[in-house]
């Protein structure tokens, strides 16, 4: 499913020749694991905290049969209900926001509502990015969720070490990430973010957790696309027609081979 997500993301970015492809490349396995195994439509919720990642949510939801193919064709265009920086309007995901660092608060609010309204089994999956950890609000929400033991809340952190101005670790020091979240009362797991099977297994185990969980998914914005030039901007990839064609061919071949 992750390869299919990447292929759809290329198709969504190609018409304009640039876009948030890197986000889909780094997070494809995480979205595949959530939409493909853990998320129960109509019951659970998905929060896509960094709106720029919504491309992956759209692609995954389409793969899961939750949204129609034709809607993706309008992605990011004028008058589209599926903007490139996620905002209100789409049914998928349940919450996203273009101003970063706010999604975890919404996810905590959803988990709290489930508790107040008597839905103990409902899960909320929140996709965050490592750059967002620079926003203080994320830690307000983490502290709140830890204090209230919002155990139905699961964060998938796309730790791709990439932000607009370059590598995250060239700008600030986030490590040790797991220890920080544990200090806030969370269960933290550090894992290979491109291993969809392990991600799915950890998500399944999280259904019985007694504290909120975070999966620190170590990833790369270039993963799964060997044809990307070495200087591709992880935050905003340029995809001219020739490169788009090469990417499509590479991913399609990956889908058809066993």
């Amino acid at each position, binding site marked *: 499913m992750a390869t299919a997500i990447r292929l759809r993301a290329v198709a969504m970015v190609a018409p304009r020749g640039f876009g948030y492809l890197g986000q889909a490349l780094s997070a494809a396995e995480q979205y595949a694991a959530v939409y493909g195994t853990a998320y129960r439509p109509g019951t659970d919720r998905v929060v896509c905290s960094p709106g720029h990642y919504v491309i992956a949510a759209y692609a995954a939801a389409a793969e899961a049969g939750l949204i129609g193919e034709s809607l993706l064709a309008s992605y990011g265009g004028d008058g589209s209900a599926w903007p490139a920086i996620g905002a209100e309007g789409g049914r998928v995901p349940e919450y996203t926001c273009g101003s970063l660092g706010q999604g975890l608060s919404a996810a905590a609010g959803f988990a709290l509502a489930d508790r*107040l309204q008597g839905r103990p089994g409902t899960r909320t999956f929140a996709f965050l990015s490592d750059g967002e950890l620079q926003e203080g609000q994320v830690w307000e929400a983490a502290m709140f969720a830890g204090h209230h033991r919002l155990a139905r809340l699961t964060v998938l952190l796309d730790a791709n070490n990439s932000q607009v101005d370059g590598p995250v670790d060239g700008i600030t020091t986030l490590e040790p990430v797991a220890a920080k979240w544990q200090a806030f009362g969370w269960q933290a797991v550090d894992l290979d973010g491109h291993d969809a099977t392990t991600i799915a297994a950890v998500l399944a185990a999280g259904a019985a957790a007694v504290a909120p969980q975070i999966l620190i998914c170590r990833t790369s914005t270039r993963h799964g696309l060997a044809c990307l030039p070495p200087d591709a901007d992880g935050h905003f990839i340029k995809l001219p027609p020739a490169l788009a064609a090469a990417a499509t061919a590479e991913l399609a071949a990956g889908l058809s081979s066993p």
Partner: protein
Amino acid sequence: MSPPGTGTPVLAPPYRTVSKPYGRALVALARQHPQIVCLSGDLTRQCEIDLFQAEFPGRFIHAGMAEANMIGIAGALARSGLIPYVHSFGVFTTRRPYDQIVNAIAYPGLPVRLVGFMPGISSPGGPSHQAIEDVALMRALPGMTVIDVADATETAQAVAATAGLPGPVYLRLKRGEIPVIFPGSHRFTLSRAQVLAAGGTGARAELAGASRQTGPAGRSGATEDSAGQDRDSQDRDSQDRDAGRQAGPAAGTAAAEVVIFASGMMVAPALAAVAALSAAGTAAVAVNVPVIKPLDTRTVLSVAETARAVVTAENHTIIGGLGSAIAETLAEAGLGRPLRRVGLADTFAEGAASTPYLFRKYGLTTQHIVDAAWSALARTGRPPQAPATPATPGEYAPV
């Protein structure tokens, strides 16, 4: 607009005060609406929601000193079918989490009620605590209803009136002792600004024999019996109704030379200014504008049209709030009138010991409104001097 010769009745100063009208009104509303939840940004007693916490502990949420997160939580609760009331001081419910309000509440148009205590320079706590641009900030947000109530009667009615609004609301409230300017017969509405009758001088004598309900000076007392206060309020209401009917004749709803549009804490000095001007032979009328957005432009224009000059008065910067809303309305209608905006003149205030000191220093007194009216009318000579209205502890009179 009210028929000529009448106006919304008001009581006469000094005004008796009550405590926690908002807190009691929210509890009363929450009894009717189980989906109402209450969030506190670490200012529970100060925002009168200790009452809610005591009655509905399972619906009360300590968000702590984390306003951005509190806003995000509120948005998600609203998406789940709950009606969140978010509480802190005005500076911390508007200025501080503004981006969060935009993204989590205003853009999605969710029914979150943002409650901000300590309007303008009513707080002596300095610029960090003085919400002097909150109305402007909230007014600039599409879909936001912005309310700045004048007294305890309106506070309770505004809480009820906004209950069913599908979009977000900002409610600006005075902290501590809340004056009763409007009698119990008053009817706050979301759609109409109110042309005010002149406060009758006879009304006070009618109440002289009644025992007074006074709030504890300076802070909300947690030990007060809310049920007892309700009974007292009902007694007051019947007396107030009588007083309201006996209030003086409506000051110039048909023939005022100057109209004073005021909101919140500036309604009381506006009424006093009307009295001072009228006593000096200049017909004036005060209009209470509790709902600044959406503005009742129909009343604004119909009253301004009959006047020669317009004054606005707000406990707020004169940029972006009530004064600006009035100015926009007049200009768009092509209704040119000399306009004077009373409020903070594009300045921060400061920390101080007392509110009256700040109101005097930063131009929010009755005399400042009189002076503004005099100037707008291009009168020469000394403006009428507004007499001071003394108030005993537990009473409120405008500065």
